[in-house]
Structure formats: structure tokens, C-alpha cells
């Protein structure tokens, strides 16, 4: 292990050991099903973390309940495997108490959008400075195969033998509606894109929300194959890049343009004129939300950073209020105890 000096998130010019992926691998045996998409996410997270140059012990992973929520056990960091749907509440409390920590929340489509949906909205609304990674496999895996809030309408599962009659939720649109300042989507099988996306999320100040399409080999195998399979990926997915026109296809020959509020596919668009240029820094989240609605087969599925804007974080504002109050008021507990009307009994 070597060391390097760098500006740490704690603000101290301390010597931070240069860590490697291995340093983030815990001694616990990984118990996901062979072939589960979670392995890829774990690997990319462990690979990405050393790049952050954050002191090892300042990193905390918090999860709820579900297959994805086993994640903290496999990370050599501080970890808290909490209860169903509530990881974000623990993260909010922890980050508010200890803003110098780097806090990651690992959740799933059931944990984060069903039982814990409310907390997701409020974490993003507050812009808590944490990174939320939602593993979306569109199924309940740990409870062995019931439909989830992101399962497609009509899906046949153990709890919906006649098909579901519920509209699925689009996680990104929920995040955008709640005012999330960083919203991205990646996929387990594109490891390079996944690592980059996690890095950008982790370095963003404010709530970062990353949806990762994750394959459940047992209960929903191939859920994303129709567009994410290597053979068809370039034709059926569009990689979002800030400032670049939306282009896809083997030779990036097709594009997306807007017709009023409605996106349209332009087959064989000769030039970029008229194509939608991605603006992740748009203060208005509406366009990002329209992109979040694009689904295969009508559209290529967008992947990448939908939104990345700067806004004051909850934690900065809380710290500032406390610091200002401390500077302004000479707090004295003795005086506080005597506040209001007092009287002497002799």
C-alpha cells in the first residue's frame, strides 16, 4: 500500500492511503445467485471507490432489505443492513449528524420504490448529500418472485398468475419529479459505463440517484435482453452525453428530435441539425423526464446522466445554520436555564 496526499472530503490535508479494489473486498462470502447482476455492480463499486480518495473509514454503505441490500456485507467499509425501505432514513440521520462521511444507499425497486417510496421522495427533495444506487430488476427476488412496482403491466409472476393489472413506476421520473439534482441510469452488463456513472454520482454534491438495470437470473431472467443484449444494444439504447445530440445505431446513424413535447426517432439523420441536444444541466427537469419515459420498442432506451445540476445541499444548509447561530449567539446553558421570567425565593 502506498500513500498520497490529497484534499480529503473532511477538509483535512491528511495523508490518505492509496487504496485498491481489493481493499474494499470484505471477508464475507458473497451469497447472491450465480450469474446475478449484483456481482457486476459490486465489482464496479469496489473498483470505483479508490478513485474517490476518501479515507476508508469515512465510507458508509447503508441498505434496506432485499437481495441488493446484502451489498454492505461484501464491502470493506462501515456498513448497515437496516430494515425494509428505511435505508434512506438512516442515511439522512447519519449524514446530518456526520456530514464529513461519504454515505451510500443501496436499495432495490421494491425496497426503494414500494415500501420505502416516501423516503426516496424526501431525500431527493431535501438534496441530502448521499449517493443512492437503486438496483432495478423489476421483480421481488428475496421473497421469491412476486411482481414489483417496476414490473411491466400484465407480467405473470407468482403473485400475479393472471398478469399484473398495475402500471409500473419509472424510477427516474420519480426522482426528477422529487427534484433530485443528479439522476442517472446504467446497466449491470456495461461495466465501463456503470463504473463511470457510479463515479460521477459519488462525486456529485447533493442526492445522486442512479438506477441500475440489473438482471435477476432466477425470477426475471432476460428482463433487459430485448434492448441491452450485446447484439442489439447499439440499435436499441441511446447513450446520453451532455452537450451532444442524441444519436444511436451501429454507426450512430439515427437520432432523436422533439416535436413539441413529443420525442421522435429520426432514422438515418444525415446531420445533427434538429436533433435533440442533451442538456443534463438544464434547471428545468421536464426534458429529462421526457427522456425517462422513452422505452423500447418505441424508442431506444436512454442510458447515462439525465440530470446533473448544482444546488445547495441539505447538509450544507444545516451546518451553516448551526455555525451562524453559534457565531451570532453566545450560547450559554446557564443563561438558557434562566430564560423567561425568574424570581428569587429568599
Amino acid at each position, binding site marked *: 500500500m502506498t500513500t498520497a496526499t490529497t484534499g480529503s472530503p473532511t477538509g483535512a490535508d491528511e495523508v490518505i492511503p492509496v487504496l485498491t479494489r481489493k481493499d474494499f473486498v*470484505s471477508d*464475507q462470502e458473497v451469497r447472491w445467485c450465480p450469474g446475478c447482476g449484483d456481482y457486476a455492480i459490486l465489482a464496479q463499486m469496489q473498483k470505483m471507490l479508490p478513485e474517490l480518495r476518501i*479515507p*476508508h*473509514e*469515512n*465510507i*458508509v454503505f*447503508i441498505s434496506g*432489505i432485499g437481495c441488493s441490500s446484502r451489498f*454492505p*456485507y461484501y*464491502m470493506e*467499509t*462501515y*456498513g*448497515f*443492513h*437496516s*430494515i425494509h425501505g*428505511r435505508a*434512506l*432514513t*438512516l*442515511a*439522512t*440521520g*447519519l*449524514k*446530518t*449528524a*456526520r456530514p*464529513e*462521511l461519504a454515505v451510500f444507499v443501496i436499495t432495490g425497486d421494491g425496497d426503494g420504490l414500494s415500501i420505502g417510496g*416516501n*423516503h426516496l*421522495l*424526501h431525500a431527493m427533495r431535501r438534496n441530502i448529500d448521499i449517493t443512492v444506487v437503486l438496483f432495478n430488476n423489476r421483480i421481488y427476488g428475496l421473497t421469491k418472485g412476486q411482481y414489483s412496482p417496476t414490473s411491466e403491466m400484465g407480467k405473470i409472476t407468482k403473485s400475479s398468475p393472471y398478469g399484473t393489472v398495475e402500471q409500473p413506476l419509472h424510477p427516474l421520473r420519480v426522482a426528477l419529479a422529487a427534484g433530485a439534482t443528479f439522476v442517472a441510469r446504467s446497466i449491470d452488463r456495461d461495466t465501463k459505463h456503470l463504473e463511470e456513472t457510479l463515479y460521477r454520482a459519488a462525486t456529485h454534491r447533493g442526492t445522486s440517484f442512479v438506477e441500475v438495470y440489473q438482471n435477476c437470473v432466477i425470477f426475471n431472467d432476460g428482463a433487459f435482453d430485448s434492448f441491452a443484449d450485446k447484439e442489439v444494444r447499439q440499435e436499441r439504447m441511446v447513450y446520453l452525453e451532455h452537450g451532444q445530440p442524441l444519436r444511436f445505431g451501429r454507426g450512430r446513424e439515427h437520432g432523436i428530435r422533439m416535436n413539441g413535447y413529443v420525442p421522435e426517432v429520426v432514422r438515418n439523420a444525415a446531420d445533427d441539425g434538429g436533433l435533440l441536444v442533451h442538456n443534463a444541466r438544464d434547471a428545468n427537469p421536464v426534458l429529462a423526464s421526457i427522456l425517462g419515459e422513452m422505452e423500447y420498442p418505441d424508442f431506444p432506451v436512454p442510458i447515462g446522466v439525465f440530470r446533473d445540476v448544482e444546488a445547495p445541499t441539505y447538509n450544507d444548509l*444545516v451546518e451553516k*445554520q*448551526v455555525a451562524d*447561530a*453559534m457565531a*451570532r*449567539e*453566545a*450560547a450559554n*446553558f*446557564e443563561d*438558557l*436555564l*434562566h*430564560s*423567561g*421570567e*425568574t*424570581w*428569587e*425565593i*429568599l
Partner: protein
Amino acid sequence: MTTESEVQRERAVEKLDRVTIRFAGDSGDGMQLTGTQFTRTSAVFGNDIATLPDFPAEIRAPTGSLPGVSGFQLSFASTDILTPGDQPDALIAMNPAALKTNIGDLRPGGLVIVDEDEFTESNLKKAAYISNPLEDGTLSKWQVVRINITRQNELALDGLPLPAKQKFQSRNFYALGLVLWLYGRSMETTVKWATDRFRRNPDVLDANLRALRAGYHFGETTELFHHRFEVPAAEVQPGTYRHISGNEATALGCLAASIRSGLPLVYSSYPITPASDVLHELSKFKAFGVKTIQAEDEIAAMGMTVGIAYGGQLALTGTSGPGLALKSEALNLAVMTELPLVVINVQRAGPSTGMPTKTEQSDLLQALFGRNGDSPVAVVAPATPSDCFTMAIEAFRLALKYMVPVILLSDGYLGNGSEPWKVPVVDDLPVIEYHYAKPVDGSREFNPYERDPATLARPWAVPGQKGLMHRIGGIEKSGETGDIAYDAGNHHRMTLARLGKVERMVQDIPALEVQGPPEGDLLVLGWGSTYGAITSGCARARKSGKRVASAHLRYLNPLPANLGEVLRNYGKVLIPEMNTGQLSLIIRGKYLVDAVPFNKIAGQPFKIAEIEGKIDELLGLSGPYEFQFGPASVLGGG
């Protein structure tokens, strides 16, 4: 500042030990303010005081309506008093609805002062009076004094550049002035307070002071009152005093725990009646480094509190009964992960939404057992409003020492009730100790469940500590390694260890004290806000020669070590509770004592007379005791 003229016309003065007054009016009439000002004045004068404010459930019920009546009762005395009084001696009713809902509580012969101007046909109708009670003889049991408060107030404020509606709002100062005169009190405290309060609004200040003086001088001038009353100062311990409500005391106690431990306090809570004032208070303490989070719901508040405790700071949440129900799962996570935190439950009448503005102590069993699995938490309960300060500090002391969540059971009566409080000296407050985990040497792994042999507490390893990275969670852990463990022996041992921590607190809590003879015919055992009524009731019984003692539990889990012995020193044990017998169930089950439950579930505190009545029944001096519940009233009712 004006010096108030104290020149009095000759008037007979009747000396009393204790007076109980109730101010009642529409919720917009400022009765809470009037009551509070009278309370301050009497406290400064040197009386012992107990108060009970009571607000309507509706924020703004229709003006003049029965549900819109707001009341404030205070008792002031020349002796040590512990309750706001069973029956008011005087009622100030600002409108017919206030008269109707409160008159039933007034003692026969008591004084009623009404604002005659408000007894209009339309107001009488709103109060569901068929005929005017001032005319039809229904008030013959009491001394009724009819005053044109509204008109006189108007005249006093004549010429002030304020709209009529605002002038009307000064009526409460007129009433206050009158009552201050009646009980021989100076206006000085109120003048001082108002001058500061309305300093930015000179017209309103002028209006209120004019109204106050007009009321005071009216009392002096009028022939309506045959005599005035005097309640001499009480003999209380020398020192500096202030007024404090239970919720204020709870907030200050938690801050004291922060200051005496050196750990920053973070409070996460969702607004709920009657606990919200704790949030309001703590949110003012930013300059002390206190952070407050208004969470999106009760569950979130509890989850955040677990996160705060995990982060190594003073973790606090507060709620009332329905909120505690929502918190149970996340609270259980703190039990399982053995993190120190405090949950305040300012109990209210249940079940479900129940009666949010009414008091009850029916969450004892929820606090003790309302979680899945065997889930021991410590439970403490303050006995009086100011005791909330002491017990909040105690809650944190025990939580940090034993790494156990602690529930503090307050209630609406304690939370909103107030009493004079001898301000403590900061250096005399207990020092609250905590210990983060010590670093381990490289030779072995850190085990987050390696327990302290004396307390069984596990080490508090907090993120940021080098070399102590570990994983915890709601799944059962191996006591040896902290890894997930499903084996039978381990779960057995870990369950007993979690229980053992709470049991071992017994070594750390004071023995139960008895007031009265150490042996006798009857022990009256209570907990929480029934302290005043029980203690006073037993004292009165002893005065008439009965061998009755009382004892009050401030620690409900674990129970004091000497409780079993105390119980066996008396022929009978009576347990009054504002629930259907929750402590009784515990005492009977745990000590095999045939304790008699005495249960009042009326949303109102016990009265001294009720305790006395039941004592007589148990001693065979009277027949079965029955509650006398009166008509719908704001504060009393029995």
C-alpha cells in the same frame, strides 16, 4: 415604566390557603395568555403553582361554539401543591359557550365572572342555551358577577387607532386586570411582560395596558365584589425559580445531556400533538450545536434517529402514541443493533387517533412490549413537569452506558402542564459518560458484539474510526464475530444478552422511595403524571389517621430492586392509572401481589378526591367508589 397605584378602597380581605381559578373563553379570546400571566404573577409573588392548560381539538372552531372553548386552570397556594386543583373556586367565562362547558366543574358557592355583553341571542344559540342562564336561575348555586367587559374595554380603548376587531381582542387583558385585583396581585409582572412583547407595536401595547388597568380599576371601584382574597406566599426552598412546562423541561433535559456528555444532540421528529413543543423548543437551540430534522413521517424520524446513534451522536426522537406504533420496527432495529438512543412519547388518549389533546397513560405496554420478537428497551417516566428535565438526562445516561434504546413516557398533562422550577446549577448536573470503541491491535479482528462484562454493553464503533470497520444490521449476529448467524445457541445467548443489559440497569437506578409509613394498611403505587393526585390524596388520608403510604415509579423497566419488598410491607396495594390497568398487570404478574387496579380513562387527570375516595373503599370505610363524571367540560369533568 409606570408604577401602578396600589391605593385600595377599604374592602374585606378573606385569607385562603389555596385558590383554583379557571379562565375560559373562545379559542380566539386569549385565555391561555391570560392564565399564563396570572400564573407568572402569582409565582413571582411566591405562591406554589400548578397549571393545566386545555385547548380545543379544532384549531379554529367556529367563534362562540362549544367545541371552540379554550381553558386554562391554575391553582396557587401558600402550601406545597402537586395538582392544578380538583374543582375551580372561580370561573371567568368570556362567552356563553365557555360558561356552559365549564360551570359544571365549579364548586358550589364558587364565583363566576361573565362578560354579560357576550350573552347575545346568537351566542346563546351557538352555545345551545334555550334561555339566558344569567336570567333563568340556573346559576343560583354560584355567585354570579355580570360585567360588561366588552363595552368597558371598548370605552377604555376609545380613540386608539385600531380596528374594532383588534380592540375586542384586548378583552382578555381587561379580565386579567380584574382578576389580579380580586386576588390582591400587582399588575407589574404583566406590564413588564407586555412592554417587551409588544414593543414593536405600540398601539397594541397601549390597548392591552389600557384594558388591563381598566379591569383592575373597575374591580377597585365597583361595589360588585364584597371582598377580595389573599393567598399568602408559600414556604419554598430558597433559590432562583422559573416556570417550566413538561415539554420545555424535556427539551432542556436533552440539551443538558448533550452539554454534560459533550456529544452533539440531533433530534428527528414528525409533528404530533402533544409532543410538537419538544421539536419547537429544540429547534431553537442551534447555537448549542443542536440539529433538528422535521422528518417526512414517524418511521423516517425513527430511522434517522438510528442513523444518528450509529454516527456516534446523541440521538433523540419524540412522538405520541400513534407515532410510537409507527416507530416500532425501526426502534426494534436499534434494539437489535444495540445502539443508544432516546424516544420521547408524550402520551395522549388512544386508541388510534383517540383524543389528541387529552391526556392518558395507556402506552405503557406498547412501550414495554410493542415490537416483534423479544425486544427489551428501558422505560423511564417523569412524575411532574419539571421532573421531565431530570428523567431526560437519566434516559440518555442509561442509553449510553448500556447501549440500549430508552423510552421516556411523558403525557399530555405533564407536557402542557407547568410548575415553578428551582433552576439547577449546571455544574451540579450529572456528567454523562460515553465510550467509543477502543482501537484493536492488529493481531485480531474487531468484534462489534464483544460485551463489557459489567454492563453487557457492546462497543460503540462509529464510522470514521480507523480499523473498526464492521457491518451490523437487523439480522441476528454472532456474539463472537458479529457476522450473520442463524445458529440456535447463538440466538438464545444474544436474546438473553439483550435482556440482560436492561436487567443490569437495576444496579444503576435509585431504590423506590415511600412517602408515609414504611409499613401499613395500604400502599398506593403510581407512575407518571398521577404523582400529584396520588401523593396529595395519600397525604390527606394520613392526616385523618389512615395508615396509607404512596410510592411513585420513575423507572418502569427495569423496576427498582426494592419494589417487591416495598409491596409486601402493606396489607393492600392500590394502583391508580389513566388506562385500564397496565402497570397493575405488570405488578401482579411479576410480584404475584393482589394489587387492585383503579382506572380512569376519561382523558383527564385524577382528582385528589378520587384517590381519597378509593382509599376509603379499600380500607373498608365506604362502599364501592364510583367516578362522578360531569357534563362535557374543558378541563375538569369529574
